[in-house]
């Protein structure tokens, strides 16, 4: 038993979730190896990160709410775009 005992403010990921993550990684390695055997080494993508923050350095409830509203509007816009209703 560890000398560090959990308190009411402690948090540990579950062992089950770690086992699932381990299994995902093993499956990924297996798939990667099989693909490389068949198609050769993968060419790394030149795209590193093309995302932009909704707001630089948010630091107030007004900023957090602004981000929430932008995400809500964007989600609604794209849901409407990809799932047009039958009468539109």
């Amino acid at each position, binding site marked *: 038993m560890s000398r*560090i005992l959990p308190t009411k403010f402690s948090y540990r990921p579950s*062992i089950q979730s770690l086992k699932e993550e381990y299994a995902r990684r093993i499956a990924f390695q297996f798939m990667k190896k099989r693909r490389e055997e068949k198609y050769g080494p993968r060419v790394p993508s030149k795209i590193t990160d093309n995302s932009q923050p909704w707001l630089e350095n948010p630091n107030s409830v007004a900023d957090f709410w602004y981000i929430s509203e932008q995400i809500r509007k964007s989600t609604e816009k794209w849901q409407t775009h990809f799932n047009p209703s039958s009468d539109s």
Partner: protein
Amino acid sequence: MADALQSFLGLLTSRHRVIVIGGLAVIAHGRDRHTKDADLWLEPMASTSTWVEELESVLADFPEATFHRIPRWTEVRGLDIAEAVDEIGMIRIHGLGQPVDIFRKPNELEADAFDDIASRCHTNADGTLLIHPLDLIITKFFTGRKSDHEDITFLESVARKDYLEKLPSATPEEAEFMLGRYAEWQVLESALTNPSPAVQALATEMLKEFAEAGDPFSKDILEGRKTPDRP
């Protein structure tokens, strides 16, 4: 944000400590998601009745504001407000532009934990306090909601990033405090790089405990195997 909510927050934070929790806090920590309400933890004060009186006093400047409780966000007035707060730990306010849920006792946290939680908060530019990601996880841990599970996964990554930066150079006391709050194989692996034998011993001890419980990553580290790469 509606001017009413901004003015309300200005007044409230000039008198009391207010911790941002819930979805807004998750957004503040960097997750792209939206929320339908603002969850705020107002310091609990001496009693529920004092707490409600203070809230009513601040809201006196907002004639549109009304109090509501679950179920179905029924409007409540007078003594029923304190009764609802005692029963469910929070009250909703309508009339400030968007729903605002004011908590006296958030999920899984006792009112008397406020000072402890507040001591770990970041202070926002508007005077509100932002709850620490690990404390925010605790409020979401037992809800069983899918969105909270996703929030927890995100918040874990925020906490992990901080731990991976700090643990390699933490003092034994700092490491003990940090690992008492949060530990898993990745942060323990980084603690093993700390030059302090005491920190390394602590990390090894916890890795053994996790490996015995069935964690395959901890087992790999202890047996000198490379852990499988992330997809």
